[in-house]
């Protein structure tokens, strides 16, 4: 406890260095921007900015990339509340009560409540990470290869099945990601695999090329001519509109607390990110409310709860990523990939071996969230006006950034053509209703899982029972089994009784989503 506070002080010293402060600012600014802009997602932004970080120090790189993730959450709320546009999936449910408030002329209040809820959720998530992540890491240090392998299996399975869409298609995508991760000359085996005789593939598939293909080019192919121009007339928000009244605060307060707790719970379960947290929180508020029928007509609690839970889940998502090296979703997988490019091995030893990165990151969360409040409260009008940038200007520019970014990763035009191939394949997969995000999860975790699998078997002299005789490994495998059974049960129950999830299912159907 005391050491954590002491280390955090050290972290602040790092995060407040001018260079790091600047990159943190760039990150949250970029995040806030794409959160507002329709048609550009967090994953594509992180991928576009990823090549920029290759020349940076690890701390600066990670501060900036992390800033995009939580910065986008602030921007996403603006879009949902003022324009009924769920630019950013975690905020899709905020539209339900946020937009009716705007129509009643109380859009400013809704935004104020959202920002307040954001601060609360984020603060709780950061405190949780400060004290919880080191404990998890100390616990995970004793994991052997078999335990790590089973934990990764759980992570992959959860990431594939708990996200949106068909669970089986999700599993297929993680497998595809792992196959892509096979390409290249393996360090331990010394044989080229899946290179198809192409020398350029001996180093393996480039993370940047894969991410930009799937989340950049495939997204443009999907969205071109589909994003309607936005009219922001009549949504002018002034600074003093943001201040909620006392009675509104009294309604929103308990919702924020509950939302925060829901969010941090969802962050603990691998595979359930901010989007699921926000839906659960909304359903919970509706259920607990004395006037559930008023939800959807502009209830303050329907904005406060989901917003708090989103932010607390986003911050909490960093815990398994940083303390065990197991990313909860594809965004965190991308962040993990960025760490590995910097030469940092993710895992339970990360906090001990790279305290600068870990504590600097936590301190930068405080700094970044503060910057975001400063950016959002007085400048709210500017963000609203940014919404008017049409997609037809946006995507050609983003397209050329994608090309340049991929090229600069290895100074090779081969990577650009690789990206194009991934983009076209990714679009084909999306058209077949596959969610492409789990590919990245498999791609990042696959090679490490193979290595741990091989080590586990080498240690046990080829006995597969090592995976069930070690208690931790057996526990994780048990969780995998439970996960599969729950999926089967839910599938059967839903087939029989289509309204098994009252409160959520109809809302889900009503809220369109634009990006993973």
């Amino acid at each position: 406890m005391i050491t954590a506070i002491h280390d955090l002080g050290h972290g602040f010293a790092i995060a407040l260095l001018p260079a790091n402060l600047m990159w943190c600012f760039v990150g949250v600014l970029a995040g806030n921007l794409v959160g507002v802009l329709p048609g550009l997602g967090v994953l594509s932004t992180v991928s576009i900015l990823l090549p920029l970080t290759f020349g940076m120090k690890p701390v600066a790189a990670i501060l900036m990339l992390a800033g995009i993730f939580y910065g986008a959450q602030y921007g996403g709320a603006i879009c949902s509340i003022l324009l009924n546009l769920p630019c950013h999936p975690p905020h899709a449910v905020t539209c339900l009560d946020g937009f009716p408030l705007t129509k009643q002329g109380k859009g400013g209040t809704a935004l104020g409540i959202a920002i307040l809820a954001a601060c609360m959720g984020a603060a709780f998530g950061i405190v949780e990470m400060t004290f919880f992540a080191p404990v998890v890491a100390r616990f995970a240090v004793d994991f052997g290869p078999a335990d790590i392998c089973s934990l990764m299996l759980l992570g992959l399975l959860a990431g594939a099945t708990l996200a949106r869409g068909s669970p089986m298609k999700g599993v297929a995508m993680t497998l595809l990601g792992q196959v892509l991760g096979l390409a290249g000359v393996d360090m331990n085996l010394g044989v080229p695999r899946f290179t198809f005789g192409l020398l350029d593939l001996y180093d393996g598939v480039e993370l940047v090329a894969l991410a930009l293909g799937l989340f950049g080019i495939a997204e443009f192919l999907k969205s071109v001519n589909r994003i309607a121009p936005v009219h922001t007339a009549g949504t002018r928000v002034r600074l003093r509109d943001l201040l909620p009244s006392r009675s509104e605060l009294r309604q929103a307060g308990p919702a924020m607390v509950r939302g925060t707790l829901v969010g941090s719970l969802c962050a603990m379960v691998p595979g359930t990110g901010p989007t699921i947290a926000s839906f659960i929180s909304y359903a919970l508020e509706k259920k607990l409310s004395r006037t559930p029928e008023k939800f959807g007509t502009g209830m303050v609690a329907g904005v406060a709860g989901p917003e708090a839970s989103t932010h607390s889940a986003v911050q909490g998502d960093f815990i398994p990523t940083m303390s065990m090296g197991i990313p909860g979703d594809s965004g965190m997988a991308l962040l993990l990939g960025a760490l590995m490019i910097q030469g940092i091995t993710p895992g339970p030893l990360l906090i001990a071996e790279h305290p600068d990165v870990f504590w600097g990151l936590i301190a930068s969360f405080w700094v970044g969230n503060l910057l975001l409040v400063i950016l959002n409260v007085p400048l709210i009008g500017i963000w609203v006006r940014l919404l008017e940038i049409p997609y037809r200007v946006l995507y050609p520019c983003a397209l050329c950034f994608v090309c340049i970014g991929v090229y600069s990763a290895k100074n090779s035009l081969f990577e650009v053509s690789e990206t194009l191939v991934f983009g076209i394949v990714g679009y084909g997969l999306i058209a077949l209703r596959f969610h492409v995000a789990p590919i990245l999860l498999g791609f990042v975790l696959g090679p490490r899982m193979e290595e741990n699998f091989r080590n586990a078997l080498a240690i046990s002299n080829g006995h597969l029972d090592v995976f069930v005789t070690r208690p931790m490994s057996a526990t994780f495998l048990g969780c995998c089994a439970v996960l599969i059974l729950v999926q089967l049960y839910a599938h059967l129950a839903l087939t029989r009784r289509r309204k098994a999830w009252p409160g959520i299912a109809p809302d889900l159907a009503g809220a369109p989503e634009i990006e993973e």
Partner: protein
Amino acid sequence: MAAGHESLLSPRQRDLVSGALCIAGGIGVLIEARKDTIGSLDRLGPGFYPAVLGTLLTLVGVLIVAAALITTSRDALRFDDMAHEAAAPDWRGCACIVGGVVMFIVFAWLMGLAPAIFACVFVGALGDRTATLRGCLILATVMAVAGTVLFGYLLGINMPLWQWPFAS
């Protein structure tokens, strides 16, 4: 977003195609994995893990096909949460985006950064159905100048900014 984008395949057909693709992919991985030794359990060869992945992928493909065959079309809709996302492709937009990337590769290879950005943005921007030739030219010129300054001068990208093709 515009209404009237009909999908090319019905949900059931889509699942059948998806499953078939997974099976084909899985078998492809298995064939490729056969080139390396499988090894034994205490000494896994390089072909072992790919063989496992290939088998699993084939299996998942079979399950997807089986599920598509037994479920009714109403159930298939349960997972159809991307209905608005995957309508028939916008061919003009897609062709221009792919063309833009190809243009980037060709012009970066032949002439350097500035022409590559110009060609990429210009061709890409033509994909929007409301685009005008003038607007695309302006956007491409602005991006070429800004991109060359940002990436060429400030970030020092490792690519000639401008050269005549075949000059060397």
